[in-house]
């Protein structure tokens, strides 16, 4: 009898924290999960735009002042390295156009977090456009490379820089893990372009481990005469 009374008392005491803490917590957790899963891309956009809003305003002004891009119209021949202005970190030096995927965005030298919110960004350990080598370019999947997965083999990628207009023909597209370096070859000496963006395949929770890669071979444009001496 006493045992039953104790149990009833415990249950009564338990109801209060259950009602005030555990139920709201569980409900909130389920709600948060639902928000993350349903509004995956939307939330990503909000966070992205939010990060831009919270950027220091002087950075903004400096950025805009530095990025008055003057496109070249030179489509063939060669261009001497000494006749070009070598791009500087986080600065726009071209633009990328892919008509088949409705992509048209700035090309920035350097792929910092800040630069990635502004356009397609080149890894500084890769060669600049036209230099002869592999150019690695990344952009966010919910921004400039939203439609990158629409690019197909045979499509053309147009890259206009401050020193020339280049065309690349897509030779491969595919999904790979981010660490899979079999997709690109940093040792290549011939002009080639690799574009990539994150690839979502499962849930909103956890790191995005895969990337959608587009590999393209040089088709036309003024290759840079490096003028290496010695």
């Amino acid at each position: 009898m006493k045992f039953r009374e104790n149990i009833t008392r415990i249950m009564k005491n338990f109801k209060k924290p259950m009602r005030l803490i555990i139920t709201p917590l569980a409900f909130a957790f389920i709600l948060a999960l639902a928000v993350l899963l349903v509004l995956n891309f939307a939330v990503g956009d909000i966070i992205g735009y939010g990060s831009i809003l919270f950027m220091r305003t002087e950075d903004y002004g400096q950025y805009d002042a530095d990025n008055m891009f003057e496109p070249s119209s030179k489509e063939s021949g060669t261009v001497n390295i000494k006749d070009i202005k070598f791009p500087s970190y986080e600065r726009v030096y071209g633009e990328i156009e892919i008509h088949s995927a409705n992509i048209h965005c700035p090309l920035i030298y350097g792929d910092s977090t800040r630069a990635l919110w502004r356009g397609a960004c080149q890894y500084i350990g890769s060669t600049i456009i036209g230099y002869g080598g592999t150019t690695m370019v990344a952009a966010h999947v919910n921004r400039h490379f939203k439609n990158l997965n629409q690019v197909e083999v045979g499509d053309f990628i147009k890259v206009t820089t401050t020193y020339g207009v280049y065309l690349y023909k897509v030779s491969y597209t595919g999904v790979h893990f981010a660490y899979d370096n079999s997709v690109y070859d940093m040792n290549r000496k011939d002009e080639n372009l690799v574009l990539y963006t994150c690839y979502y395949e499962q849930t909103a929770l956890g790191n995005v481990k895969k990337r959608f890669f587009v590999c393209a071979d040089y088709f036309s444009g003024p290759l840079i005469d490096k003028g290496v001496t010695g």
Partner: protein
Amino acid sequence: MKKILCLVMALALTFSLCLTVNAATGINANEKAVLDELKSKEALGKNGWSFFIPTEYVTAAENYFNTIDMTDAQKDTILGLIAEGKKIVKEQGDKANFTGKVYNLKTMEIPAKEKVLELGQKACKEVGLTLTYSSKDNKVIIKDAKGVVAFENTPIVKTTGESFNVTSAVVITAISVVILAGVAYLVIVAKKKALFVK
């Protein structure tokens, strides 16, 4: 008049600082010699092992060299520092009696790593760069005199999408709890008020 002069000076200074593109200088013979040394994969250790600098790091160096003109004296100093660094690596690999093909610099002893880092800082200083290393996140950043990044040891492939980790989930949950608690409080207060009215 002073104010106008100050304004003009400030504007001139701002525009001079905004000049961020560098006229490319190409790769001269001195820079080529340094790049060749950086690319070298010669056998170094007693067991025939070698070590090499990743291509992307050499490319980053080449990109920077395209914006400067390295002198003979700078080349000699840098090549001397590279030789000194290689000597330390050789000593480390041989001391560990490494028998593989490619020696991993990560396995070096900390004092030796620090010495190599110091040599790297000296080499960078020679061409107007500053190398900083953060042991917290193992990050190396090299900047020029204007503070512009010339190199950073970030992965080749970056994160280009939103990745929600545990921290994000916890933060969103916490915000949801606060909002829910607020709504619940308001409902309870409203109900109590309604009871008293009756």
